[in-house]
């Protein structure tokens, strides 16, 4: 629908009327950041309250305040044992894990999209999730469930190394091109997926099918405070570090050569950031299984609001991703109550149509 007025004449008639979404406003970032932070915080509180057993948002505050030792200071009475356990032991860890995973995946998505210069890239695009799934399926059929996070992490990292190695080898010293990286990721992902199917087909028995399937589709249902610590810690450390790389990522807008001429040590930055993404994705996937579309859709939505500059895009995508996954998970546990859906089905159900719409829009502009 963007009928680009591509007159080649140099007439200085102001082209602003035809400008789609003027987005060069750093001014608009501040308010959006405030909106995003409030939305995430409110979502966490509301989502904990939603569900069977009538909890009010105020109850959530009371429980949290009590456990943080602030109950007396704020003059809040503690909750009863049962609702308190519901908030503190079950729902809060789950919701916080969802928030951390969503935020982290969105940041990873932004970084991947920038480094591969592919707006449709996703942390999972480079075979990361397939690698993680292979690791997870392998330990699940072996019955070594305690090793699952480690195996998922190792699988994700191995897949990334394989993908980048393949892309670099096929690039013959010209660096890593976006298209080749994506194709290499597809190849590695398909291979890992085939291997996962083989593992399941060959050796899974009984309940292992359900376990593996639920992991493959992604879920934060079993989240504990350990999950919160791992996912939240990874997001706070790696996610924050990645979110500070805005102007580095901006420099890649027109490709590796352009980045190099702007003074960016291209190869080093690419490797450090990709390893950062792999570590963060691995840590998140290990807690939640592979949840698709968050890293793909949320950065897109945020770009529509604030433009493509990464200094704003990274933190706002994190806030939006966290909020999104909190609500996706809330849907996953409430729509078919008392049965639960894996949250990956919900994100796919929302994400796939949005993704299709984005492709459609891209087709219309191209």
């Amino acid at each position, binding site marked *: 629908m*963007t009928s*680009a007025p*591509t*007159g*080649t*004449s*140099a007439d*200085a*008639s*102001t*082209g*602003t009327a*035809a*400008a*789609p*979404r*003027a*987005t*060069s406003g*750093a001014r608009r970032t501040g308010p959006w950041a405030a909106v995003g932070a409030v939305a995430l915080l409110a979502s966490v509180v509301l989502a904990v309250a939603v569900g069977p057993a009538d909890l009010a948002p105020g109850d959530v505050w009371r429980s949290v305040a009590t456990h943080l030792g602030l109950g007396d200071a704020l003059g809040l009475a503690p909750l009863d044992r049962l609702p308190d356990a519901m908030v503190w032991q079950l729902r809060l860890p789950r919701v916080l894990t969802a928030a951390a995973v969503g935020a982290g995946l969105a940041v990873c998505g932004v970084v991947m*999209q*920038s480094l591969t*210069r*592919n*707006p449709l890239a996703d942390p999972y695009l480079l075979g990361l999730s397939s690698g993680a799934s292979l690791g997870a399926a392998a330990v699940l059929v072996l019955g070594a469930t305690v090793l699952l996070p480690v195996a998922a992490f190792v699988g994700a990292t191995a897949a990334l190394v394989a993908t980048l190695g393949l892309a670099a080898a096929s690039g*013959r*010293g010209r660096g890593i091109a976006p298209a080749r990286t994506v194709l290499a990721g597809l190849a590695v992902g398909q291979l890992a997926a085939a291997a996962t199917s083989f593992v399941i087909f060959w050796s899974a028995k009984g309940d292992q099918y359900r376990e593996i399937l639920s992991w493959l589709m992604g879920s934060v249902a079993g989240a504990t405070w350990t999950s919160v610590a791992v996912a939240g810690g990874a997001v706070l450390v790696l996610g924050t570090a990645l979110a*500070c*790389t805005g*102007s*580095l990522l*901006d*420099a890649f*807008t*027109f*490709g590796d*050569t*352009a980045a*190099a*001429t*702007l*003074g*960016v*040590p291209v190869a080093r930055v690419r490797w450090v950031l990709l390893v950062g993404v792999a570590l963060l994705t691995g840590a998140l996937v290990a807690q939640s299984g592979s949840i698709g579309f968050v890293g793909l859709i949320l950065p897109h939505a945020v*770009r529509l609001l604030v*433009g*493509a*500059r990464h*200094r704003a895009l990274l933190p706002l995508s994190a806030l939006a991703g966290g909020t999104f996954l909190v609500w996706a998970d809330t849907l996953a546990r409430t729509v078919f109550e008392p049965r639960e859906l894996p949250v990956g089905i919900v994100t796919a159900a929302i994400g796939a149509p949005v993704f299709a719409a984005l492709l459609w829009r891209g087709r219309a*502009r191209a």
Partner: protein
Amino acid sequence: MPATTAGDRPATTASPAGAPTGLAAERVAWGVDGRLVLDGVDVTAPPGAVTGLLGPNGAGKSTLLRIVAGVQRPDGGRVLLAGGDDDGADLLAMPRRRRARTLALVEQDAGTDLPVTVLDAVLLGRTPHRSWLAGDSADDREVARGALARAGAAHLADREVTTLSGGERQRVHLARALAQQPRVLLLDEPTNHLDVAAQLATLRLVRSLADDGVTVLAALHDLTLAAGTCDHVVLLAPGRDGAGGRVVAAGPVEDVLVPAVIDPVYGVRTTVLRHPRTGRPVLAFD
């Protein structure tokens, strides 16, 4: 550190500080797959002049520009600044960010699929002038707007780069390079895919930049355009029979763009005419 000391240069101009700085690439060699692409190439770009880098397709023009820009490591040779405050400074040994404040490259075709606005794209040129953690300062915006105006693209500031025509995009890339406030500007076929008017507009801009003291080294493949614009030209010939590409002639336009030099390199017969108004050489081939 942004080297914009007071009185040195106003932040809004694209013109460099101090005396213009020339460029000297010495014995540059680069090969790939056991084939020498550049075989000891010497290129000098005198300060404040437009130097044309000419040669048939595949002669190694882009490769040489990428090496000079520090994007690609040569297998041998050096690239030095010549003249000006930093006479003799080794460009390839220089810290990257300092090099990016000294020299800018406009690639042959750099595109993006991301929805960046023109002003944001030009602001990227300010990257080497500020800390990695800093955002755009008011100064940066002023320089970027100045660069856009200089490139004749001020009216495009709020457009998205993906919606621009080839000529408009070329101007944006030029503006991005100008926002780096470089003393040396490398251009890779800046007139490619442009219509005649846009070609002339681009070359006029290049001329005026050189007149302001920017040293320009531009790969061009249209010999007549080069003859009309450049002060000096360097003619590269692609390697043959195991030998690498080398410089066959360098110097003022009138000395290099003559049939005796051009014909063997391009395998054509050249006639040099005179432009009736400018008096510049016009080349015809058969």
